[in-house]
């Protein structure tokens, strides 16, 4: 059943298009994939000439909520997950995205955009697993 009251197709589509523009900008001018887990993960490799652009991209990402606040209040942030589970989820996301070479941005946005078979498989897997996980947490196994 679709929750029409929470459905926000216009801001979702506009926000998505802005994400696409940021991705296009980085690709066309810097030749880089805007995959967040890859960009952040590469920071720990400390390779010469490879650190600066990664750090700059992450800095931009971190500045975004502050730029937003300059003009308007941030939209609602609702987190119902306990701190213990957030730590567990973070650890799994960190390990999983590095082993799987990408996350929602690298495989989802960039990979689907360039029709990469690896990314199509990865996106289907993490979407399906995300749905199964939410189902099990909210409704139990039986």
């Amino acid at each position, binding site marked *: 059943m679709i929750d029409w009251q929470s459905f926000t197709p216009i801001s979702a589509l506009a926000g998505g298009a802005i994400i696409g*523009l940021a991705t296009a900008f980085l690709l066309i001018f810097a030749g880089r994939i*805007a995959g967040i887990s890859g960009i952040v993960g590469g920071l720990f*490799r400390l390779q010469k000439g490879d650190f600066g652009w990664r750090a700059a991209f992450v800095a931009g990402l971190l500045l975004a909520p502050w730029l937003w606040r300059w003009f308007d209040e941030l939209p609602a942030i609702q987190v119902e997950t306990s701190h213990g589970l957030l730590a567990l989820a973070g650890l799994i996301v960190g390990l*999983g995205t590095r082993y799987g070479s990408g996350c929602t941005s690298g495989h989802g946005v960039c990979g689907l955009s360039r029709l990469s*078979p690896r990314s199509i498989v990865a996106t289907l897997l993490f979407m399906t697993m995300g749905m199964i996980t939410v189902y099990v947490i909210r409704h139990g196994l039986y």
Partner: protein
Amino acid sequence: MLIQLIALLSGLVFGIGLILSGMANPAKVLAFLDVTEQWDPSLAFVMAGAVGVGFFAFRLAKKRGQTLLASPLHLPTSNILDHRLILGSIAFGVGWGIAGICPGPGLVLAASGHSGAIIFVVAMLSGMVIFDQLEKHRMRRH
């Protein structure tokens, strides 16, 4: 210096897109993943918007074969569906389903000062560092 500036701008715009789209609200992400109850399909529109723009960007980039600044493109070349991609993406999906947070929104939320997101991001970065350590260990053995 130019590439850093490009990356900073891209990260900033990317973050604004995440906030506008609703991706930076974990409850909305979980409502998207919860397909069996009150389903909020908004985030499918985020993906559609991002890929809709990204598709043409990647086509343009591949056609040109280099960036507009005449530097090389750094695109993934692997086409192998290995167990690392599959298991990593499965794990990422589970973590995403627990918290409703993936790497990009995690960083944006943490930067906005949300304590739960800060815990998530610290754990995520730890997971990435652990991955690098395990990889180093694996390389040494081979």
